[in-house]
């Protein structure tokens, strides 16, 4: 109902061949990215990978060295074009929210509106969208973290931007609040239908909110895909580990099957010779008896992770639903029960970057 008051024309973003250095240090290296109308793209990567710089460059707060950016069909930066940030019609929510401390909530939300549209109704409508109706006269410092977050969002979408950028939107919230706020924002983005790019280092956040996830590492986009594709078919062993728990087992391929320390594993594509295969912990099964020792048990409520030591080989993580059914020191057998999986040519060749421990 109220949401119809907000005129949002979903835009597109096209980034082509973007390079950017701070001094000698390259932060963005040949970035290409296309964001379709109404989609939410997550930029996921470890700190220092350049994801925030990419966001700030789209907003016009940084100038790239090379490359171009189009927003909704118009070039905003290119070899012979520069549109100042205030003319790009891009909304942005900052990591620290950057609320103006000297203005009340209404003053903050109405800040970007042209003088004629800076009416109480218009501001109240924007506040209703983020469920903050009636708080217009409060000062930002008197609001809770979650409320400040939503004021920042209301301020960004009030002028009706064609594109919305969010920089680590949830990193400043308590972990108890984060999941709840995330759901609220998720619902809001879906309902408003604004084209959105957001930056995060949290894989959960990227998967929950993102229609597509772009994984960044050292200034490059390593892979861009829908979350489920990314999880099942990561482009490199590093991506596999970055987006979830990953067992990477060496094996020997013969056609569409690889022999490994836990037995035969079906492969997505046929090959021959030495390979490394990705085995997600929840695709593994444990049966009592065998020569594999249960080293450690971690119980999470909804499921249990077993760390098991293969007789000839590494430690493997196995995820099983429900409460623990084995004890430390038990002998078990591990088997793969999932769909055909991805393989990588040789262990270690492309494991650039840290293999994050889950």
């Amino acid at each position: 109902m109220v949401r119809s008051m907000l005129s949002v024309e979903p835009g597109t973003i096209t980034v082509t061949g973007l390079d950017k250095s701070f001094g000698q240090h390259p932060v963005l290296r040949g970035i290409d990215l296309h964001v379709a109308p109404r989609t939410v793209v997550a930029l996921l990567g470890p700190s220092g990978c350049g994801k925030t710089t990419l966001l700030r460059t789209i907003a016009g707060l940084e100038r790239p060295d090379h490359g171009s950016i189009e927003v909704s069909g118009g070039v905003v930066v290119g070899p012979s074009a520069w549109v100042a940030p205030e003319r790009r019609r891009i909304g942005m929510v900052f990591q620290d929210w950057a609320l103006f401390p000297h203005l009340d909530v209404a003053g903050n939300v109405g800040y970007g509106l042209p003088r004629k549209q800076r009416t109480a109704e218009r501001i109240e409508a924007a506040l209703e969208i983020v469920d903050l109706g009636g708080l217009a006269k409060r000062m930002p410092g008197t609001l809770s973290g979650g409320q400040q977050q939503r004021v920042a969002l209301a301020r960004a979408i009030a002028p009706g931007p064609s594109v919305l950028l969010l920089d680590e939107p949830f990193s400043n919230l308590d972990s108890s609040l984060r999941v709840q706020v995330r759901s609220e924002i998720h619902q809001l983005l879906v309902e408003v239908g604004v084209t959105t790019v957001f930056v995060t280092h949290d894989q959960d956040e990227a998967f929950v909110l993102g229609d597509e996830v772009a994984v960044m590492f050292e200034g490059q986009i390593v892979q861009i895909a829908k979350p489920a594709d990314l999880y099942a078919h990561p482009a490199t062993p590093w991506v596999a580990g970055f987006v979830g728990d990953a067992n990477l087992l060496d094996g020997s391929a013969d056609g569409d099957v690889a022999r490994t320390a836990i037995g035969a594993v079906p492969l997505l594509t046929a090959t021959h010779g030495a390979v490394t295969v990705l085995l997600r912990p929840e695709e593994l099964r444990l049966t009592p008896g065998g020569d594999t020792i249960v080293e450690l048990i971690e119980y999470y409520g909804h499921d249990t992770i077993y760390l098991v030591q293969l007789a000839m080989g590494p430690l493997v993580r196995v995820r099983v639903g429900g409460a623990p059914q084995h004890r430390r020191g038990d002998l078990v057998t591990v088997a793969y029960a999932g769909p055909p999986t991805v393989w990588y040519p040789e262990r270690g060749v492309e494991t650039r970057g840290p293999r994050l421990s889950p």
Partner: protein
Amino acid sequence: MGRPDASPRGILTNVKLTNPGGRRASHTGLARLRRARPVMSVAGLVVAAVALLPLIYLVIRASDLGWDRVADIVFTSRVQGLLWRTGTLAAAVTASSVAIAVPLAWLTVRTDLPLRRLWVVVTVLPLAIPTYVGGFAFIGALGPRGVLQDWLEPFGVNSLPSLYGFPGAWLVLTLFTYPYVLLTVRAAIRRLDSSQEDASRTLGQGRWLTFRRVVLPQLRPSITAGALLVALYTLSDFGAVSMLRFDSFTRAIFVQYRASLDRSTAAVLGLVLVAVTLVVLSGESAARRSTAQHRVHSGSIRSTPVTPLGRWRWPAFAVVSVLMLIALVIPLAVITTWLVRGLDAREPLRLTTTLIGNSLRASAFGALATVVAAWPVAVLSVRRGGWLGRLVEGACWAGHSLPGLVVALSLVFFGARVAPGLYQTQWLLTLAYVVLFLPQALGAIRASLLQIGPRLEEASHLLGRGWIVTLWRIVAPLARPGIAAGAALVFLTCMKELPATLLLAPTGYPTLATQVWGATSEAFFARAAAPALALVLLSSLPMTLLVLQERDR
């Protein structure tokens, strides 16, 4: 001249005053051990009484006249005229200081101004020139028989537009007090969260609108704080207005005191000036309350962004250079010219060494006494808090709102009437220094005590040491940097202090400050040059250190 004086740390202590309630210790255990001993409480109360003595005695003295007489003195057209002139001067100096300092602060922190790092230091240095020295320099340059007229005489120019009166006082006070605003505003600009400016840009506001709608409102408290310092300084300034013959309150009080035997009138005028000071202070605190701001989020503040000035880069450089030429180079050049003239005329330099000796002695006594007096007050306010600590500390800040001339006047009366044994001795002058500069020493010592924290003392007590041993072996050695800083600061401020020294120094005890004033007012410019230069050199040392420290922060 006088009270806040051109002292570097005066700014810091005063800013601290406007942001009260620093760290309040909230420890529960061993509170008993922490409690300051009765000796400290008694000593603190004595110091508080001393700090309030001039004000109280002035009230007693004025009330001797009877309220009808007081009303007769206050409600006259003469006092109205004084109020109008002093108020106008304070407003004008404050406005022009803000107009100079805010752009200058922005240029030296946020832009690619050529030689920016050098300007950061240099633009504060005019504060190291006492206003009466500045006044002397401008009279020496532009006044009759001045340097400029000497140069222009061959071209047939026989007289210059007069510098005396309002224009001269306005110019001199602005040039040598605007750094108060510069320092407070610059600190605020460094604290700004630049992502707010980014946010404003993404919300469709250009650079200028962003400055007006986001930056300027947040600088307002610091501008107000700096403007307050300038206004209070102007109200209490004695040296510059007297030299430039501008009939402000301080000059009228001095003339009244010197010219007639009716000293009670001077006391009443002094009280009126104190009242004006209090009005300004309360106005500032009201303004501060109405612009109460909440820190929204302690987000990581990105490194200070630099705004390229583009084609305005060199024009801005030229403007800053011209300003520094007027505020620093020309005064120093003029003083040096007069020094050379004096040497040519065989003016004895021997006199200056006597002056330096006198100044050093008086200042050393002042610094020592002030630090000794500040110690119990600092201990009480940091370790005890409560009503007693607050009362004692509050009394000691009184020096900040009392013009130096008023304190001196009150002590003259006090010495002549109540304590003739003290009158015309070094002791009374030292007492005046304590009253005036207690806040400076207090600020420095208090800060170092806060850093020590009560845990070390508690440990010492648990190891079986009493409070005297703890004080001597733990607290005093650790607080030494703060004590030394406070002492150095008070020492240098005493060197430059003019009105109290003028009124209270024993007969035949000239100092650098009184010599500059005396020689200038009798137009012996050459005789004023050497002591003036000595004063500038002495005060620019701590100023430079302070600015370098500010930049590191």
